[in-house]
């Protein structure tokens, strides 16, 4: 299963970026093989609005089934849901740890946006 994690840097050792729409990049991990790839999100870092929507589009193009991040706003959540992507919020620590937690089923799926847009 392919998942995307919002990250500060482009490696597995990087910390999870708590922001979904305005994270530096996404680490796309294949949980079966452990292969990973970093996908840049920096076109969005400076977007005045709609960053969450654009990010959701970026990850959906990667064909992921789940997104793991710190917080997710309503517009991004709606876009991800429409794309059939599950959202897990409240992640922290490194990307590698987060992947492990995900595999063990220790993360909870978000049922709605957990922050208002532009929370940061």
């Amino acid at each position: 299963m392919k998942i995307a994690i919002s990250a500060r840097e482009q490696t597995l050792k990087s910390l999870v970026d708590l922001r979904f729409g305005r994270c530096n990049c996404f680490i796309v991990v294949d949980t079966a093989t452990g292969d990973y790839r970093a996908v840049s999100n920096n076109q969005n870092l400076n977007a005045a609005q709609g960053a969450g929507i654009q990010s959701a589009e970026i990850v959906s193009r990667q064909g992921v089934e789940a997104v793991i991040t710190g917080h997710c706003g309503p517009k991004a959540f709606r876009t991800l849901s429409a794309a059939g992507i599950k959202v897990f919020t409240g992640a922290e620590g490194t990307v590698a740890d987060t992947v492990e937690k995900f595999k063990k089923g220790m993360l909870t799926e978000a049922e709605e946006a957990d922050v208002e847009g532009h929370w940061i």
Partner: protein
Amino acid sequence: MAPAKDKAAAKDKDKAADTVAGVVAGESGKVKDVAARVGVTVSFTKYQNGGGNVLCRDLMGPVHWVYPSGGNKMTINLTVAVASGKGGTGKTTVSVNLACAAVAAGYKAAYLDSDVEEPNGHLFLKPRISRRYPVSVPVPVIDAEKCIACSSCGEICQYSAILCINKNVLTFEKMCHGCGGCQLACPVAAIAEKGRKIGIVEEGVAGEISFVHGKLNIGEAMSTPLIKAVRSAGPDNSLRIVDAPPGTSCPVITAIKGVDFVILVTEPTPFGLNDLGLALDMIKELGIPHAVVVNRSNPYNSLARDFCREREVKLLAEIPDDRRIAEAYSRGELAFSAAPAYRGVFEDLLISIEKEARR
């Protein structure tokens, strides 16, 4: 002097005042006659205004304009915006008092509050609202039956307001600028339009002032269409005073674009002048004639005066830092009626604006 005579004199004096306010152009002689009888000196300044009305400045009060006969208002076609680099400088104080000075001077005048996020002119003018209508922006509606999920709409939208994902088209109405681009881009005409309400415009009268303001819905980010609606309301052939939103961004530019003259209100503080500088840059870019009015001014503080000299911008008036004005403001009263001593400030400002705008 016998009391009867006193009474007669007082009556004459009243009559003189009435006459001053009532004569038409060319009849200044009559005013002088009456004035001479009751012992008041009157001097006249020729003041050309379309129909050739005369402005007379007498010694009984600050300034009186002479109305055309029949009590009709003088017509004028002038739009003046009152703006400021930051909020709370006294923009509304200047706008509403200017509107009062204008009707007192015999103009047909309108006050248009385009500070739609926080309109507050109504607190002072206390208008009677007679018309109320919503303002909407067009947003796309998707016909899912027709849609072939080609993604063209999402690609053309500059505002991430529409997006085709997983064969679904999502719209984010609050982000849509209503440009119609998606509708044009859709190859199968699956996109129609509906209106999304962003606020209302209210029109009415406050005494003789025509009153218009816009109220943006709470939490609404799209304000420019509402500002445009406020700007296009109100009577023609009048002195239209536009109370602009504070700052230097899109809403202000929408409010002041195309006006004849802009007054920038500032306070003589370093913060105030910094923001005034930004506002000046913006206005120069737009190429609109403008001048500065300093609010809460005191004779010993020359910061604003120096600033205007440096930036080579005209300083049209200084409104004194006076408790009476502040108190009137906090009670929601007009300085024009609560502190009559300052009427002259606004009346003179009006004259200066007229002169400047006609250059």
